[in-house]
């Protein structure tokens, strides 16, 4: 009796489920389509873009679009700038977050709550609202159109401090106490105990930081004025003037170059990345 009762239900569920799979697959295709179109267009010759008989796949694969875009204007320089800004920015932000998180997680000090509120409060203020006064501030310091201006103002690490502090709170104090008894100084304790233990969290935070620095468009737009200081994201926006000349294949090659590293980094680390994002957004 029970068996006959169950069988038709199972089939019903799988029917409902296949409808869900169809629905999700359809939208997955919509999500992924712009990327497919970007990559395919980047390999097409111009003549295949402007034909009324558009084909999905390139009839003639033009890999030279990529070497051409690298030779166009200052594109090469944009890549170098993005690598410099992202590398230094991530290292700076991680260090700031690491030391700051230790202070908040393990030390009892005066005005601790106020300092915490001050740093996390920066997350409440959307940076774009301050574009003009931030620009004027950087200008006064003399960092306009410089790597320092591109990196330092964005390395405040509020989110990283919050994320790492949560993790460091779970490390038992006994570890540090034992090291202290053995005569280890502050920096020894930080680098011998906390650094190795929080390494996975540091990597996660580093990926967030990397995506942030690499992808940012607004801050480089405000802070740079010369073509030589443009980062890749900003340079690509600038590249769009090529669109007037109809060089879609070069634009898409440039876009592919700018996206690929982040998508690869994302796929390598997506599990921890998604977990931390969910936790951060719901708690924060």
């Amino acid at each position, binding site marked *: 009796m029970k068996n006959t009762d169950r069988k038709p239900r199972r089939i019903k569920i799988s029917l409902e489920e296949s409808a869900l*799979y169809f629905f999700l697959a359809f939208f997955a295709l919509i999500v992924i389509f712009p990327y497919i179109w970007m990559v395919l267009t980047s390999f097409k010759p111009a003549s295949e873009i402007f034909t009324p008989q558009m084909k999905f796949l390139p009839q003639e694969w033009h890999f030279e679009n990529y070497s051409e875009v690298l030779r166009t204007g200052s594109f090469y320089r944009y890549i170098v700038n993005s690598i410099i800004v992202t590398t230094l920015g991530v290292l700076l932000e991680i260090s700031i977050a690491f030391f700051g998180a230790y202070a908040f997680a393990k030390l009892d*000090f005066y005005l601790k709550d106020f300092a915490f509120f001050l740093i996390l409060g920066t997350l409440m*203020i959307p940076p774009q609202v301050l574009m003009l006064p931030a620009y004027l501030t950087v200008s006064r310091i003399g960092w306009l159109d410089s790597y320092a201006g591109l990196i330092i103002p964005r390395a405040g690490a509020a989110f990283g401090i919050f994320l790492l502090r949560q993790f460091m709170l779970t490390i038992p104090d006994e570890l540090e106490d034992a090291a202290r008894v053995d005569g280890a100084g502050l920096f020894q304790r930080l680098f011998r105990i906390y650094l190795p233990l929080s390494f996975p969290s540091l990597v996660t935070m580093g990926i967030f930081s990397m995506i942030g620095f690499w992808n940012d468009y607004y801050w480089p737009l405000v802070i740079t004025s010369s073509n030589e200081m443009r980062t890749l*994201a900003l340079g690509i926006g600038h590249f769009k003037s090529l669109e007037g000349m109809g060089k879609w294949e070069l634009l898409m090659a440039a876009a592919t170059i700018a996206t690929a590293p982040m*998508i690869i980094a994302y796929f390598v680390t997506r599990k921890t990345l998604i977990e931390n994002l969910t936790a951060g957004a719901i708690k924060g």
Partner: protein
Amino acid sequence: MIDTENRESSFERAKKIKNTTIAYLLLGPALIISLVFTYYPALYVIRLSFLDWDLISPEQVFVGLDNFQRLFSTDSEFWTSLLRTLEYGAIYITLSVVLGLCFSLALNRIKYFQGFFQSLFFIPSVTSIAVVSIVWSLIYNPQVGPITHFLLKLGLERGSLPQWLNDPDLAIPSLAIMGVWQSMGFVTLLLIAGLKNIPQIYYDAARVDGASNRHQFWHITLPLLSPILFFVAFMQLINSFRVFGAVAIMTKGRPLGSTNVLLFYIYENAFKFFDAGLASAASLIVFAIILCFALLQNKLGERSVFYQ
């Protein structure tokens, strides 16, 4: 007895003072960056909003509330700008919450490929707005874009095709759809986390009572998910006030000023028309609006405790 207590507390105090020195040395960079690049500009923008200044001349004239008066005058671009932003927000929030709810409910019910779909939907979130804007400029292109080719294949006349970003009525919806596409993964992620937090026992109890799927959705899922739904809706509302990159790259406020959203309005007034006072006054208003939303979001977030 009293003596030892005193000694202990003075020892504690000495330790705390030492800790305070260490802590502020470690926190120094984070605090300095917060103060110099967030709080100082936040105060600076208040001062600027009372000035008439072109960013270049050494002369800064104090004009009181003049800038706010200009901002709120009936012929001010600010109002249309606010309207455009709200129009964008209405489409963006509705679509992303409804679609996000569908996706998360669907993902929560399937057995296989859950992680696969979830990570796929999330890819646009790790793509720069610059790249997204460039690629979607091609997608929406009325001459060579894939949508155009598709519609032509369906047999539509070239003259009757939608002009997307070139059409003043379609430009904002087009941008909003692109925004939904980009933020969908994150919205779905949050809603799935919300769904997973609903205790299975409610559903079991409902099933025992013979409640249908639809019944369970309206009487269990939706009420228990509502705190997260509100959270997401407010997050998207705040995000809709922060639209900037897409406009700066794709439309530059055109056509006919139809995509001149608030942040682009501020940007142009600051760096194109060199009207520091007006740009700062507008910045303050936008900041006040966003702050109100954020506070409301927190209030609603607190209430979610009662549901759980």
